[in-house]
């Protein structure tokens, strides 16, 4: 126990207390103004590390979600294009049917119409999304079907996006060779058969049997392609729903991460405001005491 109080002790104690209180107040007001518990790493080193990790996780999840949305868009457009090709083939089959027993001029009309179909199908098969060919596998800058006679110029590779940590990826494309089987001659069967049919129809010496055979061959090739189209349309739908599932999961994760982040870094405002007021009260009391320091002196009493 201190039995003798020197004047320095009295003044130093008050000064020290005031400075301590001001430090506490300043930290509390930092937290109040930023609404964050952690305003510098030393406020809570573990918490600061956690906050950074959570923020990185949040940014990653955000990015994965964006990737998924990009992939979904690609797949949905892919599905639409495949359906369009399917419809065009169906239409072409119907038109081709009209050529049977048609006159020479009728055959030419059908041939012209089929030529249009062929061009349209090719243009869908060569569709681009944001500047990239959709059906050429990983060779997105290569036109997959340059014309009706050439072979598929793309590859069988999948396009991938990152959808999770540990390098989890999802494929989001359908390659051209999966829907348009190659012919033995190196081209694409359905285009070749369509070309053959058009040639037969335009050839004045073609017999009805020639036309019939050509139609049958085209229809067989078209049907093959349609089966593949249906399969792949189903596949895109499945891929989209897989991506959506992942996206939902990521949304849930993001929510969790945000809650954890808020718990780790957000200040409890009502509690802080209470504390702040309490400290302000104590500080005021200390100022009052400091102001009356001299009144407790013998000198004051004597004078």
């Amino acid at each position, binding site marked *: 126990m201190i039995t003798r109080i020197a004047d320095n002790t009295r003044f130093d104690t008050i000064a020290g207390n005031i400075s301590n209180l001001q430090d506490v107040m300043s930290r509390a007001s930092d937290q109040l103004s930023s609404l964050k518990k*952690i305003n510098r*790493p*030393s406020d809570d*080193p573990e918490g600061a590390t956690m906050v950074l990790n959570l923020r990185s996780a949040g940014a990653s999840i955000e*990015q994965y979600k964006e990737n998924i949305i990009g992939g979904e868009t690609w797949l949905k457009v892919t599905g639409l294009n495949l359906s369009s090709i399917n419809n065009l083939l169906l239409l072409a089959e119907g038109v081709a049917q009209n050529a049977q027993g048609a006159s020479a001029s009728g055959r030419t009309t059908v041939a012209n119409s089929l030529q249009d179909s062929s061009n349209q199908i090719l243009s869908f098969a060569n569709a681009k999304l944001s500047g990239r060919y959709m059906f050429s596998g990983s060779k*997105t800058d*290569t036109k997959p079907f340059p014309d009706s006679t050439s072979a598929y110029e793309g590859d069988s590779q999948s396009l991938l996006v*990152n959808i999770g940590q540990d390098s989890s990826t999802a494929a989001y494309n359908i390659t051209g060779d999966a829907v348009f089987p190659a012919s033995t001659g190196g081209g694409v069967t359905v285009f070749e058969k369509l070309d053959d049919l058009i040639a037969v129809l335009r050839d004045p010496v073609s017999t009805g049997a020639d036309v019939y055979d050509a139609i049958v061959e085209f229809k067989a090739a078209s049907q093959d392609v349609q089966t593949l189209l249906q399969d792949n349309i189903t596949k895109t739908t499945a891929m989209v729903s897989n991506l959506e599932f992942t996206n939902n999961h990521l949304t849930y994760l993001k929510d969790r991460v945000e809650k954890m982040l808020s718990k780790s870094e957000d200040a409890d405002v009502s509690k802080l405001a209470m504390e702040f007021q309490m400290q302000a009260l104590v500080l005021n009391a200390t100022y009052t005491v400091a102001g009356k320091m001299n009144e407790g002196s013998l000198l004051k009493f004597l004078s």
Partner: protein
Amino acid sequence: MTGANIGNVNTPGYTRQRADLVTTGSVNVESGRADFGVRVDSIERLYNRYLETQLVDQAQKLGFDQTRQQIMGRVEGVFNETGGSGLSDSLNQFWSSWETLSSNPSSQVARYAVVSTASNLSSLFRENSNVLIGVQQDIKDSMTSTVSEINNLTAEIAKLNEQILATGAEDGSSNSLLDRRMELLKGLSKDMNISYYENDNGVLSVFLSGGRLLVGGSSSAQLYVNSSDGNVTLGSDATSLNSVITGGRLGAMIAMDGTTVEDYSDRLDRLADGIVTAVNDLHTTAWGAGYKDSVIDPPIPAEGHVNSFDGSVASGGDFRGIENATYAMKITTGGLFGAAKYQISTDGGKTWGVENTTPGSGIISMGDGVDLTFTNSGVTNRLAAGDAYYVNAYPAGYHKDIGPVFFDDTATGARNMRVGDAILADPQNIVPFVSGNDGFIGNPIVPILAEGPLNSYDGTVSSGGTFTGDVNMAYAMRITTIGGAFGAAKYQISTDGGKSWGVESITPSSGVISMGDGVELTFTNSGATNLLTVGNTYYVNAYPPANFSTARLIGAAKDNLFMDGGAATFNDFYASLVGRVGSDVNSIDNSIERNTAATNQLMARRDEASGVSLDEEIINLMKYQFGYNTAGRLAKSANDMFDVLMALGR
């Protein structure tokens, strides 16, 4: 004395003084002697040596912590991520920009975004690194001024020693000198860790930790600091004292400069270098799908000979070669391991090396890290002459140079991190995607001879076609029956390097044999016989195209454990660096709090003994005044008595 005390109420280190009064001027009276007089015998310093020693020690601790706190205050600013505009966020944005580019490889905006986030990231790294370097330089500068302050203090202490010795310490005449010296000693202790000793004459000797004399009597030794390497030396001795000075402000500066800040700086450098290397590796070189898979096929028996070993045989090891190779081992002299002899071929059996005795362990090194291990689990465990084993090894993928370095790689360290010139000059130089067969290096043919017959075909053989597979493959074709010309000879195809064989077919007369997945083996009839012999075997290794999304892989690099020898991601590494800085600051703050409290307690104790209390002095003043008044009254009474006596005698 009371006047001196009141006057010095606010003098730091002033020790309250008290006059020692003794009686004097005694006179003889009838009954004996009476003491009428008083004089000041000496002036006593009310002083507690033990407390002063503790205060000196505490000053050193506080000096150490306060300096560390000041320095860390600046360092913590570098790592303050709470605002959300620090390195961590910049890093997240950087990785995200790559993924966005990966989804939109042809987008100009995405390319510029990559360049701009990379530039931001690099400039933050440089800025932060420069702050740390600046802090280190400032520490060295402060060391210079602290050392000169120390030199002044020691010189002054030496001077005071001389004066105290001359004045003599006993009668209180050197009290103010002693107070002054104690204050200087505390100042010195605040600057560095010292030990000291006061001899009977009142002369103070000051030592460095480790016993080197700093102040001895009236002389003091000078410290020097080298402003470039921060080494502190004493006098003409060039030995660095940095390991000895571990306390006070100077100790804090040495520790901060050489250890703490250096460590942060080093970690920041490692992070920057790690990112630069990872991104550049991915951006400059595309690897085939076989990358990092040193596939080693299980052994295949030689054609025409049944392997006699009835234990198990496996291939293993870590293939270090850079090209595909087919290794072969054949037994030249039969027998048990340790007795049987063997030869190794590194070209699939075309040429054979020197004959060696098989090791008793049963592990035979094929070269380039590939081992063939025989496990003695059968009945005979014998090797027969003619036994042969093949192992196909694939290097860590074929690769292709694809783009310029993304980050400049001419200098390392965070302070030198910047986006490469080629990329800055034109963001078109970013390679977000290596499309299709660009990564395809080719399918080299490795025609090897089966053990036994000679390769009889005397035309040319080549491999070709477009490989459509997506993993590394080793194809083989062997002539099975009849032999003879194309169109007559029969063959089988293996898609696993000869381990298992497909159905037997007749060779086409064209001489073009399809191996599968678009790979073809073409025999060109340019020789004399053009005959195929049973047992002729041809191998073709094929590599898939490098379907390689640079941007996606760089984006995914954030989740790869590139740091701490495969234990942490970049973000983890940085977050733990921030945590480390935070906890360092935190522990210094706590230490300061503790030491400040201890110092205040000691100061209160010291002031209890030595501090001036005005109330006390006023009471003393009143007491002395009262004594004086009374003495005056006595004098007046005596005077009155004399007056009466004089009047009587008149």
